[in-house]
C-alpha cells in the first residue's frame, strides 16, 4: 500500500530523525539511555523514596529519631524493621507468601495476575491512543460503561455456559467502544479536544450508571441499594486453577489482547495508519490517510478494550456491579500505558507491576500497618520519574557511577 507514498514514513516511536550518519554511540551509552533502564531505575527510585516515607510514618522510628545521636542503632534498627516489614508484606501479598501453608503460598502471585487484568486491557487501549496522537483520559468512563453492560448481560439474560460470558464481553466491548467513539466522532467532525470530551464523558458515565442503579435496569430487585444482583453462574469467567484461587480466563484474554494489539500496531496496514497519524498528522493527511476516520477507529478500539477490562472486573471477580466498581482502574491504566511506553509488552509488564502493588496492599495494611496511601504514593512517584527521563538520570546512582567509565549524561537522548 505504501508504494504510492513518496516520502518513507519515519519510525513512529522516534520522531527525531535517525539517519545512519552520526557515529555509533558507545554501547554503555545506549544501554543506560534505553527506556528500559529509565523505567527500571524509576521503579527502584520510587520504592526507595517510599521507604523513606515508611520510616517517617513509623511510630517506633519517630521515637528513636529523637535520640538519634545518643544511640543511632535504635533508629537504624527501627527504620530497617519498618521498611523490611512493609516490603516483605508487599512481597508476601503480591508474589509468594513464605509464611503461609499449602496452596496459599502461591496464591499471591495469582492475585497479582487477577488485579492486573483490567489494567492490562484498559492500558492496551490507551497505548493505542497515545501512539496515534490521541490523549484519551476517558478510560475510567469506558471501563465503567463496559462493566455496566457486562453486568447487565450477566444478570438479565439467561444463556448457556459458553455463550453467556462471550456475549457479556461482546456487549462490554461494544458499549465501551461506542462510549469512547463519541469523543472520536466529535474530534473528527468538529475538532473538539478529545482530552476535554473524554474527561467530561467520565462524569457523564459515572452519573448515568448511578442513575441506572436506582432503576430496575441494574438494581437488584427487592432492595433499595444501588448494587446490581450478582451475575449468573453461567456468565462468570471460568476459573483457571480451581476454587481456592481467583485466577480466571480473563488473564489469558488480556494476554491474547496484547498479542492482537501488537499485531494491529506493528503488522497491519490499519495500525500503520494509526502510527502515521500519531507521528505527524499533516504528513499522514498528505499521504492520503483519512485522519478523521483514524480518530474514530482509534477511539473505538481503545474504548472497546477498556470496556472489556471493566467487564472482566465484574465477570471475573466482583460478581455484583456498583457505581464504584471501576475504582481507579481507568486512571491507573493511564499510568500503566505511560510506564509501558504504550507498547503491548511494556503495558503487560507495567500492569503486572501495578497489579502487584494492588494485590500486596491489603497485607501491607494488615500485617505491617502501612497506610494504603503509601501504595498510591509509590505509583505517583513512578509516574513523575517516568515523565522525566533526564531527572531519573540525574538521580540515578548507576548513571552517576557510569560517568567514570565514560558515560555522558548530557549526551543522553531524552
Amino acid at each position, binding site marked *: 500500500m505504501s508504494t504510492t507514498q513518496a516520502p518513507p514514513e519515519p519510525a513512529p516511536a522516534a520522531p527525531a530523525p535517525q539517519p545512519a550518519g552520526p557515529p555509533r554511540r558507545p554501547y554503555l551509552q545506549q544501554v543506560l539511555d534505553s527506556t528500559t533502564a529509565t523505567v527500571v531505575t524509576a521503579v527502584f527510585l520510587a520504592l526507595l523514596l517510599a521507604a523513606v516515607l515508611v520510616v517517617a510514618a513509623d511510630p517506633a522510628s519517630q521515637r528513636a529519631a529523637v535520640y538519634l545521636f545518643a544511640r543511632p542503632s535504635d533508629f537504624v534498627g*527501627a527504620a530497617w524493621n519498618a521498611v523490611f516489614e512493609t516490603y516483605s508484606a508487599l512481597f508476601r501479598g503480591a508474589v509468594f507468601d513464605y509464611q503461609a501453608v499449602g496452596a496459599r503460598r502461591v496464591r499471591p502471585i495469582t492475585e497479582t495476575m487477577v488485579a492486573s487484568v483490567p489494567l492490562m486491557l484498559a492500558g492496551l487501549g490507551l497505548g493505542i491512543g497515545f501512539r496515534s496522537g490521541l490523549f484519551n483520559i476517558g478510560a475510567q468512563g469506558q471501563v465503567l460503561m463496559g462493566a455496566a453492560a457486562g453486568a447487565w448481560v450477566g444478570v438479565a439474560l439467561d444463556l448457556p455456559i459458553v455463550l453467556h460470558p462471550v456475549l457479556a464481553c461482546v456487549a462490554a466491548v461494544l458499549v465501551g467502544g461506542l462510549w469512547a467513539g463519541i469523543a472520536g466522532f466529535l474530534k473528527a467532525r468538529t475538532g473538539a479536544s478529545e482530552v476535554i470530551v473524554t474527561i467530561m464523558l467520565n462524569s457523564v458515565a459515572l452519573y448515568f450508571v448511578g442513575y441506572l442503579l436506582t432503576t430496575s435496569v441494574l438494581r437488584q430487585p427487592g432492595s433499595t441499594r444501588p448494587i446490581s444482583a450478582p451475575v449468573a453462574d453461567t456468565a462468570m469467567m471460568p476459573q483457571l486453577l480451581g476454587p481456592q484461587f481467583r485466577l480466571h480466563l480473563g488473564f489469558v484474554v488480556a494476554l491474547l489482547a496484547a498479542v492482537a494489539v501488537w499485531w494491529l500496531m506493528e503488522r497491519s496496514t490499519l495500525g500503520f495508519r494509526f502510527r502515521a497519524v500519531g507521528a505527524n498528522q499533516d504528513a499522514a493527511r498528505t499521504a492520503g490517510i483519512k485522519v478523521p476516520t483514524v480518530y474514530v477507529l482509534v477511539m473505538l478500539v481503545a474504548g472497546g478494550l477498556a470496556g472489556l477490562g471493566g467487564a472482566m472486573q465484574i465477570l471475573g471477580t466482583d460478581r455484583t456491579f456498583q457505581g464504584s466498581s471501576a475504582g481507579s482502574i481507568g486512571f491507573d491504566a493511564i499510568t500503566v500505558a505511560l510506564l509501558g511506553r504504550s507498547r503491548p509488552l511494556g503495558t503487560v509488564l507495567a500492569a503486572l507491576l501495578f497489579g502487584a502493588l494492588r494485590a500486596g496492599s491489603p497485607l501491607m495494611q494488615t500485617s505491617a*500497618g502501612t497506610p494504603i496511601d503509601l501504595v498510591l504514593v509509590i505509583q505517583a512517584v513512578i509516574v513523575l520519574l517516568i515523565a522525566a527521563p533526564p531527572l531519573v538520570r540525574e538521580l540515578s546512582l548507576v548513571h552517576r557511577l557510569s560517568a567514570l567509565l565514560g558515560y555522558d549524561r548530557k549526551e543522553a537522548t531524552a
Partner: protein
Amino acid sequence: MKKIIRVAALGGAVALALAACGSAPEESGETPTSGGTTAAGVDFTACMVSDEGGFDDASFNESGYAGLERAQEELGIEIKTAESTDPSQYTQNVDSMVQQGCNLIIGVGFALEDAIQEGAEANPDIEFALVDSAFSDEDFAPVEIDNAKPLLFNTQEAAYLAGYLAAGMSTTSAVATFGGQPFPSVTIFMDGFADGVAAYNEESGTSVRLLGWDKDAQNGSMIGNFSDTEAGRTTSEQFIADGADVILPVAGPVGSGALNAAAQSEGTMVIWVDSDGYLQPQNEQYKSLILTSVMKQIATSVFDTISASVDGEFSNEPYVGTLENGGVDIAPFHDFEDAVPTELATKLEELRQQIINGDLVIESPSANAVG
C-alpha cells in the same frame, strides 16, 4: 546558586542534629515495636475493614474506627485495620484479615455485605460483624449466619423527631433535605424526616413544605458523592432561595457546605447527621447554626460488640440501635435551647415516648426488616 544550596543543606543538617540530640531512654528491656503495645495484654485481635470512604470520611467509617480505637484503649486488645479503595478489594481485605488471625472482623458499610458473608461462611471459628446491613441469600431473602452479627440502626426514629422539630421551628413554612447518594443508610434519614414534617402538619394544621425528598417516590436531591462540599453549598443555597429555613444534609462532611450557605442567610438552621455536629471541632465557626443533630451511635455499637466478643459472649443476634436503647437519638439543642418553644419540646418528648412504647412506628423502606 550552589552556595545557597550548601548553606541550606548545612542549616538543615544543624536543625536535624539539634532535633536529634535527645538522650536515649534507659534500656529497660521494653523494646519499641511498630505495632501498638497492648495495655492489659488481652490476647484478642479486633479488625476492621472500611468501605471506599476510608477511615477519615467524617462519617460512618470514622465512627466505626472511633469505636475500635476505644476498644484498643479500654480493653487492651490488638487492632488491625484495612481501608478499601474500591469494591474489588473488599474480599481481599477480609481474606487478609482472616490470614492475620483476627478474632473479630468488622466490616463498615452495606457494601461489604458479600465480603463479610463469604468470610463468615468460610471461617466458622472467626466472629464477624457488619455495620449498617443485615445478610441476605442469593434470592435476597434475609438470612442469619451463626458467626456474623449485623449492627443496624432505626435511624428513621430519630430523624422523625428532627423532622417534627424542623417543621415546628420553620418560620418560612418550608424545610429541606438532600443526600449524598441514594443509599439506604442515607434515605432512611430522609424518610424519617419527611414523616416528621408530615406529622407536624397534621397535628397543627399547618402546611410546611419539604423540599428535596419525596418519600412515596423514594426520589429527591442527591449531590452524587460524600465529598463535594461546594455542591452541598450550592444545593443549600437553592433550597434557601426556594424558601427553606431548616436544612438536613445527609452526606457526611458535605454538611459543612450547608452550614456555609446557612451562614449567608439570616435565620437559616441546619440539622447535622451521624454525630452531634455542635461538638465537632471543624464546625466551631458555625455551631450556632446547628439546631440539633440526628445521631447514630456506631462507635458505641462497635465497642459493645468487641467488648462482648472479648468476654466470649458474642451473639449473632442483630444489634438494632433505637430511641429506646439510645442507639439513635437527636442531640441537645445547645444554642437553640431557649429558641425552641417549651410546647414543641414537650411534644417531642411525648413522641419519643410513643416511639419507645411502640405506639408510634416510623416506617421506611430502607429500614432493615430484622428487629
